[in-house]
């Protein structure tokens, strides 16, 4: 009997020893799995109990169920039935919450594939918005250190809303600007003091909206604005920069593939270039799609720095990227020149020639270079660029009126008229929807906008020239005194955003 008891105790001891050994091995194995990136071993973050339980309880069957749901979603999509897509996407992502590619695919499918199946912009926007919400409100909640999700979210803002490839892009921009105005205040740049330390109920409500609905942190927004701005936070490229920068700060400490971080950095400099071309909100009307934007020439320096930083971090791609950088500098010179920033244009032109000695062939002085670019761009098809050029030409015209050079001024006005007419004729062969998508606002509107900006106090025009311009164009002394722009240059250089 004693022998039998000893045998059992021995077996229990062996069992405990084996379990302990298995525990030690398991830890070591999990560590290796994490190091080698074989599987995800961390528990699901921020998951509600039901989701945490489901992911554990279903085990390997989750994949099978997700597959079945995915097949159903594909079939429904093929037959044009979209009413179930939101629910199916929700289930599919919840069943595989750790797979970033699943989040990205489902969001992309809604924002890109399903949205375009609807004719009306107001019917398309909810699908774009759903794609954004899926990534921002849920994907990032469970995967806060996943660069792929940050990159895709930023890309939706930069490309889907920010570019003009979707017929409804103006509506998207308008709707987004309206939403952001609700959180940031209707006019002008954000009042950071209010957002960082709200005093009134109205201010607190706006900050709550910003944090809870749009998942934006005002303190981090300010850091981004100080570093890359001034940015127009009601336009999509600013949000693209925010999410890419936020993604970098959240993921840089992780052991990730270099390419993952590079894609985030790429979003930043591409969005800055976009902000330079048209990152200023000129008008935000009440009618659907009534939005007018122009170039934000204040961000040229930070955009340039973002390019250089990216080239330094990717020496193997530097040569390839230098082409983009050179084009950006050429465009910057030209935009500054056409916007009557001749001094700044000269400095950047000098910088262009120093950095890329063969960039301008045959060698030209600044005036000749700018004029040759204008001639090139007369055939340009990017409506943002053409609009920026026209507005720049008007600016030069008004300066010339101000200094009494009426002939030069009239010539520039005529030139602006020619550019506008030529572009509109070029797109006239396109159908009505396309004309609506890439068409320019009426010339009178563009002229009015530039005039308002030039005459505003913020523009800082010499009072005598200002008065002469008013007299020449028969404008009362008190008209256009309020600032027309929404962006102002930064007071001082700011530190890089920190996590």
């Amino acid at each position, binding site marked *: 009997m004693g022998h039998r008891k000893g045998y059992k105790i021995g077996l229990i001891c062996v069992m405990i020893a084996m379990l302990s050994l298995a525990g030690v091995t398991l830890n070591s194995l999990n560590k290796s799995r994490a190091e080698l990136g074989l599987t995800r071993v961390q528990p699901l973050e921020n998951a509600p109990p039901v989701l945490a339980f489901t992911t554990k309880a279903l085990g390997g069957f989750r994949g099978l169920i997700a597959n079945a749901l995915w097949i159903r979603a594909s079939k429904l999509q093929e037959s*044009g039935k979209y009413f*179930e897509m939101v*629910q199916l996407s929700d289930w599919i992502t919840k069943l595989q919450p750790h797979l970033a590619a699943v989040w990205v695919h489902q969001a992309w499918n809604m924002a890109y594939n399903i949205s375009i199946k609807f004719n009306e912009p107001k019917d398309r926007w909810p699908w774009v918005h759903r794609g954004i919400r899926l990534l921002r409100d849920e994907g990032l909640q469970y995967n806060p250190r996943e660069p792929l999700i940050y990159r895709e979210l930023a890309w939706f803002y930069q490309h889907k809303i920010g570019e003009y490839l979707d017929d409804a892009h103006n509506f998207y921009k308008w709707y987004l600007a309206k939403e952001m105005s609700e959180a940031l205040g209707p006019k002008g740049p954000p009042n950071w003091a209010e957002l960082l330390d709200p005093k009134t109920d109205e201010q607190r409500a706006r900050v709550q909206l910003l944090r809870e609905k749009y998942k934006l942190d005002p303190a981090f927004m300010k850091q981004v604005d100080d570093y890359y701005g001034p940015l127009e936070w009601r336009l999509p490229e600013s949000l693209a920069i925010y999410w890419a920068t936020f993604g970098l700060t959240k993921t840089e400490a992780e052991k990730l593939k270099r390419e993952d971080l590079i894609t985030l950095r790429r979003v930043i400099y591409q969005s800055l270039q976009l902000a330079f071309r048209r990152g200023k909100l000129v008008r935000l009307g009440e009618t659907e799609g009534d939005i007018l934007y122009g170039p934000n020439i204040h961000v040229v320096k930070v955009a340039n720095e973002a390019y250089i930083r990216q080239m330094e971090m990717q020496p193997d791609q530097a040569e390839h990227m230098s082409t983009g950088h050179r084009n950006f500098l050429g465009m910057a010179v030209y935009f500054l020149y056409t916007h009557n920033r001749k001094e700044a244009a000269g400095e950047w032109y000098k910088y262009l020639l120093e950095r890329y000695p063969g960039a301008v062939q045959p060698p030209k002085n600044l005036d000749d270079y700018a004029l040759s670019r204008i001639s090139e761009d007369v055939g340009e098809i990017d409506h943002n660029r053409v609009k920026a050029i026209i507005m720049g030409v008007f600016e030069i015209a008004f300066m010339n009126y101000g200094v009494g050079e009426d002939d030069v001024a009239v010539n520039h006005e005529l030139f602006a008229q020619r550019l506008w007419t030529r572009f509109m004729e070029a797109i006239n062969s396109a*159908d009505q929807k396309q004309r609506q998508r890439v068409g320019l606002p009426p010339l009178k509107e563009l002229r009015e906008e530039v005039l308002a900006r030039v005459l505003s106090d913020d523009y800082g025009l010499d009072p005598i020239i200002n008065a002469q311009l008013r007299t020449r164009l028969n404008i009362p002394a008190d008209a256009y005194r309020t600032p027309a722009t929404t962006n102002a240059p930064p007071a001082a250089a700011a530190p890089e955003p920190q996590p």
Partner: protein
Amino acid sequence: MQQVLAITKLTLKAALRFRLVQVLGTLLLIGVVALPAVIEHDGTARGFIQIILTYTLSLIGVLLGFATLWLSCGLLAREIEDAQMQMLDVKPVARWQVWVGKWLGIVALNAGLLLVSGAVVYALMMYRANKLPADEQRVLAEEIFVARGAAREPIPDYKADARLVLQQNFASGPPAGVEPQQLEAFIEARVKAQYEAVEPLHIREWTLDLGDAADLRDAPIYLRVKYNAAVPSGTENYLLWWEAGPPERIMNLLTETTFRNDPYGYVPGHYYRTNLMMAYEGFTEFKLAPNLFNDQGVIKVRFYNYTSSPMSFPLEDGLEVLVRRGGFGLNYARGLGILLFWLSLLAAIGLTASTFLAFPVAAFCSICLLIISFSTGTLEQIIEEGGITQINANTGYADEGSILNKIAVPAARGTLAFLQLARGFAPIDNLSSGRVISWNEFAMALVKIVVLMGGMFALLGILIFNKRELATAQTGH
């Protein structure tokens, strides 16, 4: 008949005694009421109603389906195992009467539960719909709470045309290195594409019979279109130009300039034209003006391809005209009826399995049978590839006629033919998209699902039950 009804009553009593009805009824009501609160929809009233209909009816189908299988497998198998059937067997009741009585009992139980849960879904849906703004109620009334029928052009016999092309051009067989099946598939695809394609600056006309003109007077007419573009547009859609009207009154073909200058023309009773940005590779539905058909109910639809890309409209579903065929209430009732037919088939399968198998094995076999019925894609693939082994990766066909392949293909063909009897009926899909379930379709479902498929299982089940030696199944006594 008296014996059958007595068994039916006993079956219903047994279900009540097991508290199955109470549990199932409660589950159904909770599900039907709670589901709308947890489902995420696309944000539109139409999407909300569609998803409620789809998910609540699916939930009802799934719950009742599992309960039916459990009940049908359990009732008979357990009574045989517990020797209760021996007591019944000595009474003047034929075994087929026992089988039919139990089947009727389960069907009656399902009918009752389906009626109650279906009525609750209907009432809840109408209650929610009535609270919506008038505009949305109108959309629901025209597109969801309606029974719309689809008029399509008959599909031309392009396979016969393809055979003719083959005979004329390849009488001596396919060129060297090309498999006969490959050549046949290629020619068939080419001929079909000729029917479907519309080249740039060309038109395509469809003449469709909508039915009785008097019934359609002033009713909304919708065009549902699906097309593919040979040249991607960049924005994934094209501006398409449409014209519709009675064949005799519609204007002569328009020039591009005329149409572009007046793209939204409408002369009541004569023609209606419009242009729309439409995404390719998906369906777009849009409303036409009413009364665009002649006295015989025939409408002509024209598509003008003013784009630079060839377009193609699939013969199967490239274009259809949707018109009202009836009200939603009766359509809904017919849809529930088809659900009941499926449940009746499940009951027959379960009862048949339980005549010769123990309860767990019968349930397992019935579920396996259901899984096979969902695998028609695999069966189709076996037939298409000519087997299940030695499939040539280059041609996609089985190169050699092995014994396995020779057995697999006819077996797959036979199974598929049997399963096809129940396929093609999609009451939930039809209801959620406002499509009509006609009386004809309803009758076909009854005949195919209940009479033919259910009848085959019933015959098999009764036959086995009659031959079964009940005493050998007795356990635990």
